[in-house]
């Protein structure tokens, strides 16, 4: 294993907060126009069409809300950056136990476990505080490390 410095709990937390804002902003760019069209149509007096647009928009919005953050994280972690934009700003990245970039499968697994555990109980995100490798549950399962870039 090559020499590395672990990212630190604070840097990981801040990277996650930054990513939440990035994903939230991207989602709003998609969601606001859809409801805007619906509201505009409603204002023009066609309430049936407005209702239909709003109704049709809900399914993709729900899908985007869950799938969007996962796709973003999988794509970024398995890219050459090995980090989301939040992690890039905090100068940290994710590596596997051999120090290599995560495979696509590992990135998918890591991301799904991460969102599953936080939805189960957000206290599970405190897990990195309790082990020397600063690994959260998703890191332990996929066997990766978050290190300084």
């Amino acid at each position: 294993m090559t020499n590395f410095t672990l990212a630190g709990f604070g840097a990981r937390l801040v990277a996650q907060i930054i990513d939440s804002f990035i994903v939230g902003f991207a989602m709003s760019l998609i969601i606001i126009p859809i409801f805007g069209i619906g509201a505009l149509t409603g204002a023009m007096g066609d309430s049936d069409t407005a209702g239909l647009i709003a109704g049709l928009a809900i399914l993709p919005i729900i899908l985007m809300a869950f799938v969007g953050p996962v796709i973003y994280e999988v794509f970024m972690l398995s890219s050459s950056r090995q980090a989301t934009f939040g992690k890039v700003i905090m100068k940290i990245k994710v590596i596997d136990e051999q120090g290599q970039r995560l495979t696509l499968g590992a990135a998918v697994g890591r991301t799904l476990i991460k969102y599953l555990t936080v939805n189960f109980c957000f206290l599970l995100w405190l897990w990195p505080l309790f082990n020397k490798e600063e690994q959260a549950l998703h890191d332990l399962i996929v066997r990766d490390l978050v290190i300084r870039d």
Partner: protein
Amino acid sequence: MLQIPFPAVKKTVIVIAAISVVSFYYLSDPEKSHVGFACLLHHSTGFLCWGCGGQRAFHELLHGNLQKAFELNALVFPVVGLLAHVLVCELTKQNPSYPLIRKRRVSLGILILVIGFTIFRNLPT
């Protein structure tokens, strides 16, 4: 790529996040507003996990209602203490390493405490 002074960003974001979370839970009563995280385990099984009632307990704690906070979730006291410790360490140290809570005996003790608390609160009264 974007080059921002790392410690400054980290500290600023942590301070803003901490103030936001405390303000949110002070102003918003999770009992009434239903805003915040819902527990999937409680919804699907009816069992209380170690975190159930934590948000309501934190709200009561911020309003000084210690007994009600304790009744809703007694773990709110050690968790808030831990988070306060983390906050101070992250703001005052360059690379906090948390040697005490990362000792095997301490982390094992915390795990036993959390599991024991979860079993205890689900015992039939």
